[in-house]
């Protein structure tokens, strides 16, 4: 593996995994509208993708599913 390949792998490893709201709702077994209302009740923080779309970090989603407070 050359230096450039190493850099790409390291960069990808640093990038936190995120999921869309629609996927988060599906993974939690919720209607999309219900998931948005949960986010608005501050049960889970959200971020923006570079496109402006709202996303949830995989780590926070896992915490919510385990009932640890991600906020």
């Amino acid at each position, binding site marked *: 593996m050359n230096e450039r390949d190493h850099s790409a792998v390291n960069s990808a490893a640093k990038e936190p995994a995120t999921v869309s709201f*629609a996927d988060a709702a599906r993974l939690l*077994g*919720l*209607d999309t*509208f*219900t998931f948005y*209302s949960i986010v*608005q009740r501050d049960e889970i923080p959200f971020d923006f993708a570079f496109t402006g*779309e709202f996303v949830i970090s995989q780590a926070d989603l896992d915490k919510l599913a385990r009932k640890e407070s991600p906020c």
Partner: protein
Amino acid sequence: MLKRNGEFVRHEVPGYPARFTDAELASYNAAFAIIERDYKQIENVKSQLDRLAKSNWEMETNPRPFDTVSTRDGTQWKAYGILVNLPKSDVLLCRKPEGGEWAVIQQLKTNGAYAETHGKAAVLLTGNDPREVSNEYIGQAEHTLRFMARNLTAKAQEVVWEKYPDSNPSRVMRAISERCALAVDNPNALQQRQEQSIDQGIKKSRGMSI
């Protein structure tokens, strides 16, 4: 017929007054297909909220509950009405048997990961007057719908700008943004514009001038 970039401008889309070329319509349709499922949920919830807002709230003297809901703290609530019905959950108007406190309660119908760890019922709002708690819920739910509409617009943007950069993306995005916003804030205007465009299409097909 008008032309733009050498293409006829002939396609109408819901909620947008201007017409699209074939290329713009292809971009619009591709982006809308990505958000359509969630967009329909916005329309569905909004129509239920509008119906709820127009209800006359003539309470019976002795209203009968149709269900009992238990929250995680063990409180039992009697359900008197369904405010919003969704595939995986209901939002219920409930009352405590003792004390007469009213609440808006979200009840999940399925056993997903969230229901397993957080319980199937959650109190969203409480108050002494059923109309007041319901109206407060309508306001909160409309805020959630605006949040959804904003995200759907952002999601559509990715398709429009990345896959159709040469098909007037800013114009296509204005149409999608307008449609999402109208679905929440003025669905009647969206409906009227659709009916007008169908009406105009019929008149044109009959060779009538407008």
